[in-house]
């Protein structure tokens, strides 16, 4: 069959799964008084449509910030505004000020689901398709199967089309990666600025972008072409930021208020049961009680910075596209594990870059993607999305197994660890058994997935267990990705060809 019909089928399959998942429940369905993220999005539509732009981020009599106040950057607000405009055309009650609070109905659910579906179809999916077509050194069939795997990644589907969230910031970030891989640096930085202005969590990806582009400038020579490129990039970033913030740029107080909303420092080190290091450590020590909030902030900042440093330095010194993708993964993972106020959904920021390298390290990538979905399980259980989770996850595993035969690709070379194991030869003899350990761990996770222990005396036992298990996995992955990045030598590509 032709490449194009295969790709069409892939996209149609992905869309079918997305819509089928969206038939299910959403975050906070029928749970007054606060509901969930679905209501948050609807509330933002209500706010942005009815209030003047200067009041969007301020606490007023019409805008109670304690009830799902806007806490995302301006692009999210504009997007809500556009959606609200369409909602108004269909049914004005959906966005009526005050009275629409907590509105739930089948037509409205259909409308909201459609907006997500359209956003996915227009931004995220084309980016994935184009990215897969631009992969080098792969057959047409491999390209299609990578696209299938990426599009069927259950974490994103369940969060976007089940839990309720827009895939726009991730989609824009993907467009940025796509542009950079075609050497369209300016366009890429515009796309990334848009992503950043859609969701501040995109900061997790900002350092690799910065280091990669900076490294590229250095490589061209800081006195000649490099300087020109640097100036152009800086100009582009400034202009795109200015464009996004234009309506708020009238006075400083507006900008400060938005920033305060975006970075709520007083919310504490972590919320809920997130699979990062702080939450897992708090099983042993109650960090939140021992250390003052200020120190928590400093501590998390310091640890994050330290863990980021090696990958970023390496990328700046040796900017390569491959290194860039791996750095995106490891930096986002560092942020997720160590930074302040992390949400469990933020693991998607790590997963999407992992998707991008699924054709290079199929085994580790699939494993990571499965664990990341697993770490979302408590959230999905709260939203009554267990059934789609239990269905899409094995389906994804089956697709990965079929398209990459991942279980056979666990040699040191396939894991891109050849260089590392060579440099360690002699010291570590157990290293050869690494693939076997990995395999048993995977099946272990799978089992714990399958036999969900019902929480009995300790209500939080189950979420905490999930968080700790996932966190341990993520730490392992952080080490792994850093090893791959740091031991990556330039002649690797030549070896592959020979």
């Amino acid at each position, binding site marked *: *069959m*032709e490449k194009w*019909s*295969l790709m*069409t*089928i892939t996209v*149609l*399959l992905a*869309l*079918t*799964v997305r*819509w*089928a*998942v969206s*038939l*299910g*429940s959403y975050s906070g369905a029928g749970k007054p008084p606060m509901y969930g993220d679905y209501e948050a999005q609807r509330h933002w539509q209500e706010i942005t449509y009815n209030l003047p732009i200067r009041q969007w981020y301020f606490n007023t009599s019409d805008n109670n910030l304690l009830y799902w106040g806007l806490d995302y950057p301006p692009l999210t607000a504009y997007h809500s505004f556009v959606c609200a405009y369409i909602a108004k055309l269909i049914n004005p009650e959906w966005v009526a000020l005050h009275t629409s609070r907590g509105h739930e109905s*089948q*037509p409205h659910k*259909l409308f909201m*689901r459609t907006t997500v*579906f359209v956003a996915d179809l227009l931004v995220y999916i084309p980016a994935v398709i184009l990215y897969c077509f631009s992969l080098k050194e792969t057959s047409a069939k491999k390209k299609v199967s990578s696209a299938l795997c990426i599009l069927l990644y259950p974490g994103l589907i369940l969060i976007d089309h089940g839990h309720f969230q827009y895939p726009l910031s991730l989609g824009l970030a993907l467009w940025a990666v796509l542009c950079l891989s075609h050497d369209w640096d300016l366009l890429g930085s515009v796309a990334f600025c848009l992503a950043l202005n859609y969701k501040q969590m995109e900061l997790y990806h900002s350092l690799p972008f910065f280091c990669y582009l900076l490294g590229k400038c250095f490589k061209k020579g800081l006195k000649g072409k490099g300087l020109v490129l640097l100036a152009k990039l800086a100009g582009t970033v400034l202009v795109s930021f200015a464009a996004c913030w234009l309506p708020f740029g009238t006075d400083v107080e507006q900008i400060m208020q938005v920033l305060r909303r975006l970075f709520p420092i007083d919310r504490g080190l972590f919320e809920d049961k997130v699979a990062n290091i702080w939450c897992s450590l708090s099983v042993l020590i109650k960090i939140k009680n021992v250390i003052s909030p200020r120190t928590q902030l400093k501590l998390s900042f310091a640890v994050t910075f330290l863990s980021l440093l090696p990958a970023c330095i390496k990328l700046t010194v040796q900017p390569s596209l491959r290194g860039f993708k791996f750095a995106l993964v490891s930096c986002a993972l560092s942020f997720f594990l160590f930074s302040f106020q992390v949400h469990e959904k933020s693991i998607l920021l790590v997963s999407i870059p992992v998707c991008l390298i699924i054709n290079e390290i199929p085994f580790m990538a699939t494993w990571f993607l499965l664990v990341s979905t697993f770490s979302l399980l408590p959230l999905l259980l709260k939203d009554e999305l267990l*059934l*789609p989770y*239990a*269905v*899409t996850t*094995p*389906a994804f595993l*089956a*697709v990965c*197994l*079929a398209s990459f035969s991942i279980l056979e690709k666990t040699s040191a070379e396939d894991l891109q660890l050849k260089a590392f194991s060579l440099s360690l030869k002699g010291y570590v003899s157990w290293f050869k058994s690494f693939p076997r350990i990995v395999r048993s761990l995977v099946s272990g996770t799978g089992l714990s997935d399958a036999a969900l222990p019902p929480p009995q005396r300790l209500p939080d036992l189950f979420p905490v267990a999930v968080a700790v298990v996932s966190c341990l996995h993520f730490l392992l992955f952080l080490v792994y990705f850093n090893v791959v990045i740091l031991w990556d030598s330039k002649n690797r590509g030549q070896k592959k060809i020979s």
Partner: protein
Amino acid sequence: MRGAGAGQGARAMAAGGRGWFRALALGVSFLKCLLIPAYYSTDFEVHRNWLAITHSLPLSQWYYEATSEWTLDYPPFFAWFEYALSHIAKYFDPQMLVVENLNYASRATVFFQRLSVILTDSLFIYAVHECCRCINGKRAAKDILEKPTFILAVLLLWNFGLLIVDHIHFQYNGFLFGLMLLSVARLCQKRYLEGALLFAVLLHFKHIYIYVAPAYGIYLLRSYCFTANNADGSVKWRSFSFLHVTLLGLIVCLVSALSLGPFLVLGQLPQVISRLFPFKRGLCHAYWAPNFWALYNAMDKALTILGLKCNFLDGTKIPKASMTGGLVQEFQHTVLPSVTPLATLICTFIAILPSVFCLWFKPQGPRGFLQCLVLCALSSFMFGWHVHEKAILLAILPLSLLSIQRAKDAGIYLILATTGHFSLFPLLFTPPELPIKILLMLLFTVYSFSSLKSLFRREKPLLNWLETIYLIQLVPLEIFCEVIFPLTPWKQRFPFVPLLLTSVYCALGITYAWLKLYVSVLTERTSVRQKAE
């Protein structure tokens, strides 16, 4: 010759890929699970009611119970099937087994019923596996995606019609078609007795399969009861085997006795029969199935309107119902003569006859049998009394088996499957299911077109320009019916127009496919090699 081919195919299956078959089957099962929260039709309540009836009432009341309007109108084996299910159902939610709990649909009930459909589909999956083994691997391609067996497995397992009828609309067609395909596979493997047994059992599960019984009867008679042919392919009368006839008769009688025997003893046979064949219903279903009668009705309507315009007809004498028609059960014809059940029966009989003759006089082994099976199903779909649009699956599924063997059949399959599946669209009318039906339809259609095209890429195009235009025009039709029409002021006055358009337009395609298949079967010359068989 054919046996060797089948063996080769089986070996290819075993060597190359249990893997892909498992992946296909698992994939579609996962998709079915995702559809659990989707809309379900009143058939859901029908089956819940049957669960309740068979669970809580004695056998003697099964076919008399009428608390719900959805009385038991399937043959006894299906009732026993529901009885068996009900013993698992009580662990999910015992409330669903109370006859008086009309329209009861707790989450556990929905989950259980949906899951029962998904799990019983494993029989269908097994049957497809067996069918794939019957396909000879002459065209063995290197690429898995271009193997005929792979394409066949996708066409059957991922069949759009089965997915939406069983897993959204709600019915148990999957395992019933599984029984049918399994019996077809057994006949292809020359395990005639098993095939006959399976088909007899199937008939007592759902009697709609009686439409294809002539094909089974003649084929078994021709290739099992007569054990040899003359050199020119005609039947050798002296090779008649009494033993084989007796065995077949025994199987049919035993199965029937097992199914109907208890009711015969109770003296309820007439009641059971009257429940199974309700001729009181109208000529067409609420939504006209796209068959000959849809064209007939449409013609009648057009003539009525024309007659009123030109004052040939007196407006006051026209029955009221016919003008609001399309949604009423009893359709009264104004210009053309009304159709009686007997007339449809005769039409069906006449339509089936040539195909059966063909099977007898031009024996072509399993291929001829399948052709006759499809023609029987299609003919009875075309002319039957009160035909459901879902019955088209009875022709589409067996035709899939033929489509991967010959380019000509592939072309017919594409027309029939696309129009037939499109005509199922009105089954799902709720807005949330609109995207899913369109996506699934596109998925299946794109796949069937591109895979069959690549399979027969060395031969001439599968469809001519007229057929292509006809099929492409389904897109504007769908857009008009689902998007444009609801926005027009006619929506209130003529709510039936989209249904009418859909069924008439699809009826054209299905009639065309039927005729084309008939012509191709009747004009086909038996090759010398097949005669030798």
